[in-house]
Every structure is written in C-alpha cells, then in structure tokens.
C-alpha cells in the first residue's frame, strides 16, 4: 500500500553531519527494525519520514511521489519521549483521534458515534493495561504507563505507516510481550508499514521482517562531526533458512550500498 523510499538523503545540523548518503527502499507491509548506537540518527530518520523534519539534501518518496511536507493521518507515531496530550485524560487521549476523524468542525462526537468510539478506545486501553487509569491525567501516570498510552493512541488510528521510536523502552519484559502481542496482529491484518527503532536486538529480530543498522563507519577524532552515520547492516529476516545473527552477515561496503540504491532507482 505504501512504499517508502529515501534517496541520497543527508542531514546536517550546522557543522555536524548526522546522516550521510542514506538510500533506503521500504516495501509496503514490511516491519523494519532500526537499530544503532545512541546518537546515530535513528530518531532523525523517523522524524524525516514523519514529515516533521526535512533532509538537508536528497528526497523522500512515498509511493513514488514526493513525501507530503506535513505529517498526516497516513503516518502514525510513538515518539521516543512520551508525547501524549497532558490536558486530556487517558480515555480522552485515545478518543481524540476518533473525534478528529469523525467530527471535522466541532471535534466532538455524540450519540451512537461517540459510544462506538469510546468502545474502541476502551478496548485499546484495556489492551495496553490502563483500564484502571482511564480517567487519570498523564501527569499521574508512570513513565511506562505514558508510553503505553502513546501506543494505544497511535494504534487507534490504524495508519498506513507506523513510526515507533523505542516504543517499549520503558516497559518491563512482561508488559513488553503483551505489547508485542498487541502490535503484531494489527500490523499483519492491516498491512501497515512499520518502522521501529529499538535497542533490544531480540525484539528487533522477533518483530521485524527486516533489520537496518545505522552507524558511523568512520570517525575523525579531530572533527567528530565530520562524518555521518550510514547503513551498516541491512538484513532480510523473512528468508527461509537459519535465522541470521548479527555477526553472520557481513557489513555492506559503501560501494555496495551505492550500487543497491542505483538498482532500486532503475
């Protein structure tokens, strides 16, 4: 449904080059895990795909056309830092998306429509285990609870592309497993394209159909901002055969990387 392509994308902040010559083609319906050391530029990639930030150079295409410059309902997001609305209770945070869609002017639902939206919201809240905290404001939630709320909020809208920035980082293993169980069927049935940043390699392998690692291959000690991060690994996790492990697949050389992107363009 929605193929995402990054073509020769560079991101620079002042002197510092964050991302260098990024070429990436993400097929519709794939679940891409994005890993890499802290500060490599993972969140930056997500922000660009979201439309929140523009690359310094290069283009981003959605289904072959230029990416709309603004974030829209086709792309859902869970930010690294909890981004729920502080002025709304848990239920209303989830409900808000339904209200945006169902009532363009008033942004308020009534009667049957509202009941349906509330039911769906409550289902999701139940799924992320926040039923008991339905009427709390985010400030009264623990860190992990806020993260779960953000997940419920993003999932409620069933976007075509879902961008997750360490969505389960603040969750204990048990809750994390619940979340996996929640997100996987949703992804499968709705054919979403998911791009997830994670630091948990096991999680990256367990959920993803593809794993992409970002890293700085070169560092100039005199000018640490001189070189940016590139894609150092790009693994297809769907192929049959033994599950590939990090060490097994050899890193892409920069030349290969360039070739690959050429191939994709042609």
């Amino acid at each position, binding site marked *: 449904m929605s193929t995402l392509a990054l073509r020769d994308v560079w991101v620079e902040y002042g002197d510092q080059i964050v991302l260098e010559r990024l070429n990436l083609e993400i097929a519709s319906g794939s679940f891409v895990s994005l890993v890499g050391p802290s500060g490599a530029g993972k969140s930056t990639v997500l922000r660009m795909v*979201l*439309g*929140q930030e523009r690359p310094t150079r290069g283009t981003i295409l959605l289904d072959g056309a230029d990416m709309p410059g*603004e*974030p*829209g*309902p086709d*792309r*859902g*997001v869970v*930010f690294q*830092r909890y*981004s729920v*609305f*502080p*002025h*709304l209770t848990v239920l209303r945070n989830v409900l*808000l*998306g339904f*209200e*945006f*869609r169902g009532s*363009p*002017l008033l*942004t308020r639902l009534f009667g049957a429509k509202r009941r349906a939206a509330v039911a769906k919201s409550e289902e999701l809240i139940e799924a992320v285990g926040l039923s008991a905290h339905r009427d709390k*404001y*985010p*400030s*009264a939630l623990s860190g992990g609870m806020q993260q779960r709320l953000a997940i419920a*909020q*993003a999932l409620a*809208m069933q*976007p075509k592309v879902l961008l997750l920035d360490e969505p389960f980082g603040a969750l204990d293993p048990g809750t994390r497993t619940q979340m996996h169980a929640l997100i996987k069927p949703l992804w499968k049935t709705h054919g979403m394209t998911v791009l997830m940043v994670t630091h948990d390699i096991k999680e990256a392998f367990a959920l993803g159909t593809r794993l992409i690692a970002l890293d700085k291959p070169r560092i100039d000690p005199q000018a640490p901002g001189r070189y940016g991060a590139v894609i150092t690994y790009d693994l297809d996790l769907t192929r049959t055969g033994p599950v590939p492990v990090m060490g097994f697949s050899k890193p892409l050389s920069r030349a290969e990387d360039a070739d690959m992107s050429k191939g994709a363009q042609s």
Partner: protein
Amino acid sequence: MNILPGRGSRLLLALLPFVLIALIYVTQSAQRRAENPNDKLLPPVSEMVDAVKRVAFEPDRRSGEYVLWTDTAASLQRLALGLGIATLIGLTFGLAIGVLPFVSTTLAPLVGVLSMIPPMAVLPILFIVFGLGELSKVVLIIFGVAPCLVRDLAHAAGNLPHEQLVKAQTLGASTWQIAIRVVLPQIMPRLIESVRLMIGPAFLFLISAEAIAADVGLGYRIFLLRRYLAMDVILPYVAWITLLAFIMDWVLAKLARHYFSFAYTVERR
C-alpha cells in the same frame, strides 16, 4: 527551601505586611491631624467609615441614589464588557497568530505596534470614532488590554512542544482541530493567568476613561472628589476597587485550578 510554613502561621505571615501598612497609615494620619485638624489628605479611619456609610447606605441628597452601588454597577458593567471582549480578541487572535504562520506574519507586527501606542494619547480619535458614551469607555479598555493578551497568548501557543502538533496531525487533525482541541485547552490556563494580570490595567483604563467623560462610575467619583481632596471617600473607593479586582483575581485563579487542573500539577508538591 522546602520549609513550608504551617496553616496558622501562613495566615499570620500573609496578614503581616497589611497590618504594617495599616499601622503606618494610622500613625501618619494622626500626625497630620494633630498639625491640621481639618487635614483631608489622610483622614482617620473613623471618618472613612462615616464616608462609606454615607455613600453606601444613605441615598444621595440630590439624586436619591445609593452612590457607591450605582457607581459600582456602572463600572463593573463597563469592565466586564471591556475585559470580556478583550479576552475574546486575545484568545482568537493569539490562537491564530500562534498557530498559523500566515496570520502571524500579517498580524504580529501590527499587534506589536498597537500594543505600544499609548491609548490615552489618541483619545480624540477614539472619541470621534466611538463617540462619548459607554462604547468609548469599553473600547479604551479593549484597546489597552487586548494587544497585550494577544501577544502573550500567541507566545504561549507558539511555545507548545512541536511534537504535540505533529502528533495531532498524525491523528488526522486539521489546523482548525489542532487549534481548538490541542492548543486552545492548553493555553487556557495561560489565558486566565494573563487576564488575571490584566485586571489591574483594565481597572486603570476604566478609571481613566471615566475620568475623561462620565456621569457615573467609580473612576468618575474618584476624579470628581479629587476636586476637593475628599480622601475620606477616595481612599475607601480605592480600597473597594482593589477588593473587587482582588476578588475577580481570586475567582479566576480558582476557576483555572478547577477547570484546568492538569496545568497545576507542579504546584501540588
């Protein structure tokens, strides 16, 4: 730093400066009276009480009205109108400027300039455009208060974390929806805060307007009585205005804490 005074000592502490001021007043007043038994500048409390009784509970000799109450009614009506409209203007324009870059480039400089024009200095023009009646008084309040509100709210709206707006967009919100469901409720506490800060200036403009042309109102009375330095009435009037303003301030503060409790979690420590 975290030493919180107890409940009882709290009240005491809060009253302390007022008691001090009252003491200074009483001694100064007594001293002036000792020098000139007819001194009008700092009348003793007893005379102020008499004066209040007269203006509040005895009908005026000439008009038969209870002066304090008719003045208060007239002034509060003007103030409510002025402050109300200014709040509406502040909210809508502040929101628009804060949310829409397009509106911001067009209107922000204008509002910046408008907020700097001393309204008193262009009164003649206001008179011509809005007449001499109630309208011009209300307009003066609006003119004095609204630009400040607009600027403050535009600033508050513009300062919301960008992530929130992006998030709302990903949830399918239009600009309008973001404005009313994401930005508006979150700047409401700041609006109330700003309006609270503007109560003082609003009264100031009201009084100035009433000093310029009026036949009833708190400011009218004060400036009329100033003609013969009747501080025994003026001071209670000032106290009364201050009390009214303080009550409005307090009510707004309570309202904000009640309806927008989410914004006051820091205070709960």
